[in-house]
């Protein structure tokens, strides 16, 4: 892998250039709530030590709410207008390994058979500039789902903080190489030994479970009190799903624009909501919170794996950190692991 060095100052120039070249640069907000569009060098937060934001950056590829069609009423006729969807040149700057893979993982569901243009138009052109992660708390479990704080998986370019002023820039993919080409002037030659040493010093979070073992247990233990125990205290909000970098369920609703036109919206939805699966007849296949929590766990650690060969979790721990009632997904899955 090719490696270069970029200084902090040059990184600012680089980002300013990107913005000038019509890239949409997205970075983590300094308040650590969500990700925002960077408008200038002053907004840059590339930090290997900061906590993952409350809400991941998936909203830039899979919007929390967006129109999928517009309709106009003309006498007895409806005109359907497709929303303009300019191909965006998104750049995710400073994505930790637990964020960097999110687009890749979600892209499987948005592209099996039918292809979701709204996702693809943003995802396909996006560049992920990852950063090695030096943050760790009890909720991190990236190693349990096949990632690590130092993995470049999912990133096109990968930053390793060398010292206060400099980053090593690893060129991971062909796309990344092509992308960085016009900005060579900000790079100097790197020395792989140093970044290797730094990366080797980063401690891995403890591995809490084996996904294959968990998946197998889930196959055989559909009914288990472990889910009901969580269901007892789960309040059924969507925090976990909405903060998650890979949760991708959505709702489709119509809303008015004005008196003769409207738009059909695609909105985030969550399997923890009681109304998610409620049938018109009043029948609800997942009528208790325990069953809904089981769906969440099984979808992440079994169904998605069976279907798309991918664990639907990056181990970022956002759902656990933010859960209003302290449900820790890693704890639950680790318990399953110990049962298996």
């Amino acid at each position, binding site marked *: 892998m090719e490696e270069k060095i970029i200084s902090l100052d040059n990184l600012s120039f680089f980002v300013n250039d990107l913005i000038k070249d019509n890239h949409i640069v997205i970075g983590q907000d300094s308040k650590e709530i969500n990700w925002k569009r960077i408008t200038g060098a002053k907004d840059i937060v590339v930090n290997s030590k900061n906590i993952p934001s409350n809400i991941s950056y998936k909203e830039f590829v899979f919007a929390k709410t967006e129109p999928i069609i517009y309709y106009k009423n003309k006498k007895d006729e409806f005109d359907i207008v497709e929303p303009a969807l300019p191909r965006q040149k998104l750049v995710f700057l400073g994505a930790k390994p637990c964020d960097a893979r999110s687009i890749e993982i979600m892209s499987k569901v948005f592209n099996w058979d039918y292809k*979701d243009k709204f996702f693809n138009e943003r995802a396909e052109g996006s560049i992920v500039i990852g950063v090695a992660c030096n943050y760790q708390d009890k909720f991190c479990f990236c190693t349990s789902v096949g990632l690590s704080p130092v993995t470049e998986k999912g990133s096109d370019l990968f930053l390793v903080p060398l010292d206060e002023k400099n980053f090593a820039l690893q060129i991971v993919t062909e796309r990344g190489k092509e992308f960085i080409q016009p900005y060579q002037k900000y790079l100097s030659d790197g020395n792989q030994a140093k970044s290797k040493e730094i990366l080797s010093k980063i401690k891995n979070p403890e591995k809490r479970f084996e996904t294959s073992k968990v998946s197998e247990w889930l196959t055989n233990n559909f009914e288990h009190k472990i889910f009901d125990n969580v269901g007892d205290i789960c309040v059924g909000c969507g925090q976990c799903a909405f903060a998650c970098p890979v949760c991708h369920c959505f709702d489709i609703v119509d809303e008015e624009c004005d008196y003769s036109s409207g738009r059909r919206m695609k909105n985030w939805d969550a399997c923890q909501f009681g109304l998610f699966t409620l049938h018109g007849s009043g029948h609800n296949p997942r009528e208790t919170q325990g069953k809904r929590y089981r769906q969440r766990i*099984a979808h992440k650690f079994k169904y998605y794996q069976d279907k798309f060969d991918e664990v639907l979790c990056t181990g970022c721990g956002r759902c656990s950190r933010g859960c209003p009632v302290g449900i820790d997904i890693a704890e639950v899955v680790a318990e399953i692991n110990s049962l298996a």
Partner: protein
Amino acid sequence: MSGSNIYKPEMMEITDIVQETSDTKTFRLKFKNESTAKSFSFKAGQFGEYGVFGEGESTFCIASSPTRSEYIECSFKQIGKVTTALTRLRVGDSVGFRGPYGNYFPVEEMKGKNVVFIAGGIGLAPVRCVIWNTLDLRNDFKDVTIIYGARSFNDLVYKRELKEWKERKDIKTVVTVDPGGEVPDWDGEIGFVPAIVEKVAPKAENTVAIVCGPPIMIKFTIPVLQKLGFAEENIITTLENRMKCGLGKCGRCNVGNVYVCKDGPVFTYAQMKELPQEY
């Protein structure tokens, strides 16, 4: 460009409306766009998303037979926001349609076999599609039996067709209503569908059973069929789960490893048994 907008509906026009029961209607729909109409084809058992602009979309199976390609029909019960809006529409109004989605009944493989159709309530709609498909190609199939039941006489759908099927000599049609649901001159059976299936006792040899109806009916009918000797692979049903996209994206209809909208809605009992009980 990475493909077209998969959420964009095609405009259809309502050409006929039949009031099946007090709260159930059947629409006959035609594509407004000629070329769409020409290129459109579907198979028995597939479904579509029917939309009223400003209200939303709702999922129903295509209730007409693929052998009659000049139109599609759908039947629905007025329950929620979209179905209420649909109920208010009149002949000539527009409906948005996306589809066809999902898999289909193995009509090709059923050829040369006996077929038993068992349906309850509005569950006749998806079965009707296969019934007409079968009847339009009557010579390809052996014995055809239709067992249909509803809560009461007033809840029977497709009454005209039921009469037509009853009059036909080449098929056996049994219609039943739940006890207490009959009318004075009722000439059909009285009793729950599973009991009537047991009474009619279609032979299992070289036979495919297509079952659709409320969960409770399916639950009690399947043991009866198994007692009659039907193999699990020869009992076919179609599942209904709440759906929004119909494209295997929105995650609503996900049950176990399958998305009902993509991998279903048609499942054999053998497949269904493998799924978690979440439908």
